[in-house]
Each structure stands twice: as C-alpha cells, then as structure tokens.
C-alpha cells in the first residue's frame, strides 16, 4: 500500500489501528518540523532527539483522541512538541541569556519541488506564507514573539533576558502578532 498519497488524518486513523507503516509515513512528513521545534527550544540535539521520539510515541498511543474538527494534524504535532520541549527547557535551564529562535528566511527555504500530493503542496504553501510574514516583522518583534512561543518565557522573563522594559516587551509581542495577522489576511506570495 502506498501511504504517501494519504492525508494526515487518514494516517492517524490507521495509526489508531496500530499500523506501523502509517506512523513511519507520518514521521517522514513531520519529523523535521517536530525536531526543529524541539531544537529551537532546547538548543541541545540529544534532548531534541529525545523529544522527537517521545512525540511520535505519544502519537502512537493517542492517535484515537485526535479530532480533525479541532485542528490540523501538523498543529497537533507541533503543539505536543512545543509543550514537551518547554517542559524540558524549564527543568534544565536556570537563566535566560543568549536565547534565540532560528526563523527560516524565505529566500533560503529548503522546500522540495514537484509536489504530487495535496498534503505536501498545502504544507509548502503554508510554510511560504508564514515565513514571508515573519520576515516582514522588525527584528525586535520577531525575537519577542519567538522567545514567548518557542521558549515558553513570560513577559517579565523576556524583558529580563533582553534587558528591555516590561512595557516595551508587551508592546512588541502585541504589535508583532497583530502585524502577522494583518499580513496573512492580505495578499500572500505564491
């Protein structure tokens, strides 16, 4: 059976019935994403590998609980990866200096060509849109948004790490997210 043409939701249904090949296909599609989320948070390849395996083991155990009405599979996967990584990050880090998030420049996007299946084309389109939108943010807003989302830091922790006033950090996060929404509502690059 060729799994590459199946939707993410169909793969999860098969995984819920203990289909190892379906899990293998889902891993091939999204292990880069899961590993990158973990690596950005933890800055430690060994810990990122541990999180990656853990996320897909949880998928194996919890596939039957996924509901397509509540979101996409890729969002579910990255959410598990982010929360698991932030938990590990909080246990292992006691200070917040020299923290960065590696946003992908749109010009350097490593995207494969020749997409024959719907899921792959959709993923590429969404990657291009969000990478373009993030690239339009001022660097300070980009940094504040990334530290909050991927490192799980609160406003005061980000202010302390950046050496900026608390109000400034709050404003950067608010303006950054509002600008991203505005950009993504308008015309997008194809």
């Amino acid at each position, binding site marked *: 059976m060729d799994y590459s043409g199946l939707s993410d939701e169909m793969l999860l249904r098969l995984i819920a019935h203990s289909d190892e090949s379906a*899990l293998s296909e889902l891993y091939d599609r999204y292990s880069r994403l899961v590993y990158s989320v973990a690596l950005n948070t933890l800055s430690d390849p060994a810990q990122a590998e541990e999180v990656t395996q853990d996320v897909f083991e949880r998928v*194996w155990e919890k596939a039957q609980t996924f509901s397509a009405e509540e979101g996409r599979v890729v969002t579910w996967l990255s959410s598990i990866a982010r929360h698991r990584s932030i938990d590990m990050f909080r246990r292992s880090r006691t200070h917040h200096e020299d923290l960065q998030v590696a*946003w992908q420049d749109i010009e350097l996007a490593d995207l494969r060509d020749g997409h024959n299946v719907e899921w792959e084309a959709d993923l590429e389109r969404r990657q291009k849109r969000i990478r373009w939108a993030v690239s339009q943010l001022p660097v300070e807003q980009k940094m504040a948004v990334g530290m*909050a989302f991927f490192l799980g830091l609160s406003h005061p922790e980000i202010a302390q790490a950046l050496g900026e006033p608390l109000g400034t950090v709050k404003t950067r996060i608010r303006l950054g997210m*509002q600008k991203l929404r505005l950009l993504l509502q308008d015309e997008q690059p194809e």
Partner: protein
Amino acid sequence: MVAENDLHVLDLLPAYVLDALNIGEFNRVVEHLAGCAACQAEYLSLQKIADELPLALRQSAPPGRVKASLMQAIHERKAGTRHPTGLTFWQKLGRIFSRPLITAGAALILILAVSNVWLLNQNRRLSELSNQPWQVVTLVNPETSSSASGILIIDSMGQKGTLLVDNLAALGSAQQYQVWLIRSSERVSAGVFSVNQQGHASLIIQASDPLTNYEAIGISVEPFGGSINPTGARVLDGTIGH
C-alpha cells in the same frame, strides 16, 4: 471613563495565544473569554497565526537513529515485548546464581528473610487497618454550577488513592486534565488524564509522600502531557482530611 480595551482583554490576547501571560493575566483572559463573543473571535484569529509559527522555523532533519529507535520501540510495544540491548538486573542476577550450591544457600536465606518480613508487615498492616478507615474526598467546582464531580478514595495506609471523575467536558487533542496534590504553596503533579465521551475517567493517585500528608487535591486543564505547575483553570478541587 473606562476605555473599551480595558473592559475587554484584546490587548492581552496576542500574549495569551503565545502563553506569555502571568497567572493573574491568564486567569483574567480565561474568565473573560467565557462570556465575550467579540474577544473569542479575536482570540481564534490570533490562535490561527500562532498555530502556523512552527512552520516558520529553520528546519533540520533528526538523525536516522531516531526513527530506527522509534520504530523499534513501537514494534516491541505492539508485540507486547521489550528486548533491551544490555543485560537486565535479573539477567545479571541469574548469571551470579547459576552455580547450584550458591543458589541453594541463597534461596534458603531468601525464603527465611522474606517470610519474616512478610509476617512483620502483616502484623503492622492488621493493626493499622483496625485503627484507620479509608478516606473519601469529594471533588467539586464551588465557583460554577458545573455538574462535574469527582471522588478520591484513599486507602487506609494513606499511600495510594483511586480517583473517579464524572461529567467533565471532553477536551481537545491539545489538552488534558492534570491532577495536583496541594500542600501550602507546593503543587505536586499526580498525573494527567483524558475523559471518555461520557466525561468519565479513573486514575490511580500516588506520590512520594503519603496522600494524607497533603491538604487538598485539584484538577486543572493543561496542555497535552501536563505542565510543571498549574497554568489552566481549576475545574475540580477537594480537601484532604487528616
């Protein structure tokens, strides 16, 4: 005069979807969202943006060994077997006791030791059981009219409990309920769980200290897999007596 945004939580929502709020701000947003359609719409549109952010990261592939290890673990789990690469404790023990004389002597000592310990434990348990009844803790949400409820039955030794919950709302796939044992300012996680379609779930509760050493038990909504400290709304709580 109060500004429109002060009445709503619009300014807090961008940080809310990024999980950057402190607990006070977080609770204010959660309470407000429950009854404000305008802020709910704003929240949903910002959450969609947050959901896309992971796709904007620079991506790297994990080493091939991660997939190999994952698939091996899954395969063994499916088959109901585990094949550790090194010798287990029991395998090592088996090698030590492979000689007959050592095995016979050790077995005799072991039988005598185990039987003495067992008899002592039985005596202690019997005397304790006669003095301490099982404790039943009722869990409710006193702040809402929710029909959700729970019950924690703690054994007579205070070491272990069985938690049963009823009529809890089924959560999305990104969230789970988390159990907290509470003592003064300390919050100790006692496990995460999901409920079935009927809102039922049961869970064995254990901690490093006896359950009766804690003052209360609470259940909150947390990201899937749980949090280090409570971050979500508390849906049930109960007081543990002593």
